[in-house]
């Protein structure tokens, strides 16, 4: 655990890591309290009928084709995007760690079988996996969407953790624990898992950016977050037919995606260099 705290400290000392962390905290803060402060409920259609207004007083980022305030929707979208990516990444990292630990420690047929599955799953681009599953659903509830995204993202993590475990398995303290008669479960959770937390944290941080992009892409294809829940990808989809009349309705949610993903990746990059200094 101390190694992990040290890595976090090193990432904070890195200007990239600090920029990313501060921006992420800022975005998370806005997502948490922003919707309460904004006058216009994001879902409510403006009764006056002020569609496609350019940015200005009243609508600081303009209004969309349905007279909705773009700023309110971008802020509410942050909440959705962050929630989806956090839960989905947590799910996939947990799954990946479990499979990697079991596969690497048990070895043999279990390992061979799991790794063939991982090889195959990694060969299919994740978007196609999601398209196949999501195409059938009529209107997907948010928790189901999160579940589906989370369960298609653990293959890389599993392979990563397995490689770590194969290395750690030969370490003297693991051998010693086994010789002292420690149960498999104890070896896995007490001795192996804590030493894979560094790479896991890096994978999770970099995974957040990936999932935000993926969710936005799915929503843009109409398969992700369903209206009227505001999501950045869905806003860009809504803005597409009126982009000439109201470019702001499509440009600002996209900028929100870029800033959020960039912050997560900056922090993840600094963290990776702190955990594994090669290639910095």
């Amino acid at each position, binding site marked *: 655990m101390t190694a992990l705290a040290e890595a976090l400290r090193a990432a904070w000392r890195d200007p990239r890591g600090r920029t990313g962390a501060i921006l992420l905290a800022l975005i998370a803060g806005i997502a948490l309290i922003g919707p309460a402060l904004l006058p216009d409920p994001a879902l409510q259609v403006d009764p006056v009928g002020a569609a496609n207004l350019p940015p200005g007083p009243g609508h600081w980022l303009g209004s969309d084709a349905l007279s909705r305030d773009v700023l309110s929707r971008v802020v509410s979208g942050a909440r959705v995007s962050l929630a989806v990516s956090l839960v989905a990444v947590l799910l996939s990292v947990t799954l990946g760690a479990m499979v990697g630990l079991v596969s690497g420690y048990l070895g043999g047929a279990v390992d061979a079988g799991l790794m063939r599955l991982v090889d195959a799953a990694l060969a299919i681009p994740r978007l196609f996996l999601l398209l196949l599953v999501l195409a059938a659903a009529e209107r997907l509830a948010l928790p189901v969407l999160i579940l589906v995204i989370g369960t298609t993202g653990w293959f890389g993590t599993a392979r990563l953790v397995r490689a770590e475990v194969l290395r750690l398995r030969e370490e003297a303290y693991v051998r010693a624990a086994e010789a002292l008669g420690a149960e498999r479960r104890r070896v896995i959770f007490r001795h192996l898992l804590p030493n894979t937390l560094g790479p896991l944290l890096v994978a999770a941080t970099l995974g957040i950016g990936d999932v935000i992009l993926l969710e*936005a892409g799915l929503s843009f294809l109409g398969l992700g977050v369903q209206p009227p829940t505001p999501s950045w990808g869905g806003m860009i989809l809504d803005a597409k037919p009126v982009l000439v009349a109201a470019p702001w309705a499509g440009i600002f949610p996209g900028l929100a995606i870029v800033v959020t993903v960039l912050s997560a990746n900056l922090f993840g990059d600094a963290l990776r260099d702190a955990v594994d200094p090669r290639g910095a």
Partner: protein
Amino acid sequence: MARWLVRRLAQSAITFGVVVLLLFVLMRLAPGDPLSRLQDGRPMSPEEIAWTRKLYQVDRPMGEQLVSFLTGVGRGDLGNSIAYGLPVTTIIRNRLPATLLLGGTVLLLNFTLGLWLGVRQAVRRGSREDRWLTTLSLAGYAIPSFWLGLVLAWAVGVKLRWLPPGGMTNPLLSADAGPAALALDVAAHLILPALTLSAVTIAGTMRYQRSAMLEVLRLPYIVTARAKGARESAVTWRHAWRNALFPVVTLFGLWLPLLVTGSVFVETVFVWPGLGSLAAGAVGARDYPLLMGTSLLAAGLVIAATLLTDVAYSLLDPRVRYS
């Protein structure tokens, strides 16, 4: 070597086999019937429904469906598209050239411009240019391809009218315009989608080239080359880059999924008549056979690319051990 090659080939074949199984299971695990969209806007009689179910073989037991799917894949038959009513392989063949043109252009861009920029960064490590290029390439990774495409189509295509905002050819161009004019027309349509797809994928090439180059630049033989009085450009390109190129090229198999995913969005935004927009369209129409076909092709490409680069690497770099 021969034994390694055979094992590597077998491994790829097994992976592809598992991919086929996985895709079938995923499609059937998914909630909802593959044919549920057929009735959208047009109610069908029970006889019609039964007939259609029979036509697409979804009325048979799961095991039987799997067997017929597997034998179909073995024969190179991916079934018929629900939306188009044509064999999936025919549709894919018609759409393949456009995707190859776009993907090839992007690969060319990434492997020339991207490698060159990565080498420059490594040589000027820590400089202002290096930091800016790192930030820029990271930003590229963070941009949703569909958004960048829309913004470019709007700004360059609609506002400035410099380039066509979508499509692959100008339908108003007469057919007897001559090959040069036709090629120029396609090239003009190609610029925006290729730039978009390259901008969001080039970061990988740049970053790996940079770190591979840094790795090599700290080796003793570089010091020797400098001590012998070789020009700095010769040290960079003839001595260092030669050894820093292969590690980057071998990651080709890793980047391909990124390119395939990006092409789904970029082709959709720019109405590019390739496989990416085909797959996106198949989702909307719930055209499962078509979606399966494109997914299978994408996975097959990734497996083949990984295999090819592995083999090329072991042939070209004698330091690689076959184990």
